């Protein structure tokens, strides 16, 4: 465990020593802020209208009509940003030769990979932390429920974990960061839109496609529901991504 944390710590420090962390967090803050503001205006008008109709302010639900759409809409930002986080994890080590240090240190492949995963998750968590003040503001102005919000964050962490595990795997395949970033982005996008054609296919295929879509599983979390179905999906997706990375690193060794 100490070894895993050592790698995770190094990764996280690496992000903050280079401009990557600041760019990624900064871009996310700008985009999230804009999404939040736009949806807040929309929500504002909606509640005004409701009040005008004589329904009273209580008819609108902050959780359902503001917080949930904000998070569901902003997940698209991660699609662009997370490939930038994962692109260098392996590619950079391979290019600079530091991979020789890691692979000849008394570490197992799993420790290296888990450390890198946790490091990237740390940066991702820092991005999510940017959103906390926005949500906190709503507690100051209104009266949202906090349980669904916590569960939404849990869902977001798991979803990000899936993206990061795939990103790690793709980064382990190439020395070239541009290739890594483009391939990761493509895979993310495909996982995103894979169920768009679901309604045009047969019932069996439709079910499979819907199940594969990473974002579809987030829906219940944003409602404040923890369904084991989704937990199993996310956790097995992450494990599979990390497993593929391990195979890839091992194969690379044999190939030399």
């Amino acid at each position, binding site marked *: 465990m*100490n*070894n895993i944390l*050592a790698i995770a*710590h190094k990764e996280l420090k690496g992000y903050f020593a280079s401009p990557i962390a600041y760019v990624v967090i900064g871009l996310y803050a700008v985009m999230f802020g804009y999404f939040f503001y736009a949806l807040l205006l929309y929500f504002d008008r909606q509640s005004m209208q409701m009040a005008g109709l004589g329904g009273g302010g209580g008819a609108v639900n902050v959780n359902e009509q503001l917080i949930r759409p904000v998070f569901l809409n902003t997940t698209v930002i991660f699609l662009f940003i997370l490939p930038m986080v994962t692109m260098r994890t392996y590619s950079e080590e391979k290019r600079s030769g530091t991979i020789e240090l890691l692979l*000849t*240190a008394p570490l197992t492949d799993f420790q290296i990979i888990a450390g890198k995963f946790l490091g990237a998750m740390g940066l991702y968590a820092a991005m999510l932390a940017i959103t906390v003040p926005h949500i906190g503001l709503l507690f100051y102005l209104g009266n949202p429920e906090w349980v669904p919000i916590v569960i939404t964050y849990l869902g977001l962490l798991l979803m990000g974990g899936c993206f990061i595990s795939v990103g790690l795997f793709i980064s382990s395949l190439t020395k070239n960061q541009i290739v890594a970033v483009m391939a990761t982005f493509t895979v993310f996008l495909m996982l995103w839109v894979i169920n768009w054609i679901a309604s045009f296919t047969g019932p069996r295929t439709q079910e499979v496609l819907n199940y594969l879509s990473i974002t579809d599983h987030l829906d219940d979390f944003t409602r404040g529901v923890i369904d084991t179905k989704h937990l199993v999906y996310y956790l097995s997706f992450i494990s599979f991504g990390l497993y593929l990375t391990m195979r890839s690193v091992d194969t690379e060794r044999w190939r*030399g």
Partner: protein
Amino acid sequence: MIEVQHLTKRYGPVTAVDDVSFKAERGEILGFLGPNGAGKTTTMRVLTGYMPATDGKAIVAGYDVLEQPVEAKRRTGYLPETPPLYPDMTVEDYLAFCARIKGVPRLERAGRLQSVMEKTQIADVRKRHCGKLSKGYKQRVGLAQALLHNPDVLILDEPTAGLDPKQQNETRRLIKGLGGDHTIILSTHILPEVSQTCNRIVIINRGRVVAVDTPDNLTARLRGSETMYVQVDAMGADAEGTLSSVPGVTHVSQSDRRDGIVGYQVESEAGRDVRRQLASTVVGNGWGLLELRPMRMSLEEIFLQIITTEDAAAAPEAAPAEVTNE
């Protein structure tokens, strides 16, 4: 301490290392000598557990590198050809990270860091970023990293590459000093380096071990005959025939000629000193004896001779392997 048995490594159709076997005892410094592309780096990478061998076995500090990689790695320090540094980290942070992943206990870390930085003389750059260091410093930080966990076995891939002559000497002295406690394998294509630092030399060419011996034995083994260099002012006469007739001389050839002064290479039977007869013959003929000295084969010549005979035997049509000297 290190045992390599019938090691073979193929990259697809290319055989980089072909049935290599050798041993190194505790405290020994083994020099790995060969032209570029001979398979030195590949052999070292197998020994450090960076990559598995296609065939054969490598045992380091009593542990098979394939079966018990973590145990073997715990006892191995490795300096790759390019020092594996993170450009964004300071030297101090980098070494602290290395100490942590190499399993140096928390309480000993600061002390170990201090001592390796002193040994490799990098304490003055401890706050600098690794990416901003000169090649010489990078190399030494890489060496410091290899020494951190006080390993039984040190594997150094061209440890003096990129250093200036003064630093090269210091590094060699440092390596020599480490010899007693650590078993060291160092690779190089710089010949004087091996003769200065190593107890034993493994000459490797085209993936095969060509010779394993001490520097002295290698020199002796290859000196089948003695060669003298004689420079004569023969006043226009031809001295070659006269010199050949000296008892014990087997072959005379002219090596240089300038303004009537001729230099000859005189080969004689092994173990027979012909210097007195040569001198008296030259002087007896009324010529001027300007120079008379034994020609020792340097390690360089031995090396070239070994690998060229090897290449000629293996592939007569192939061009001789590229040899880089300093």
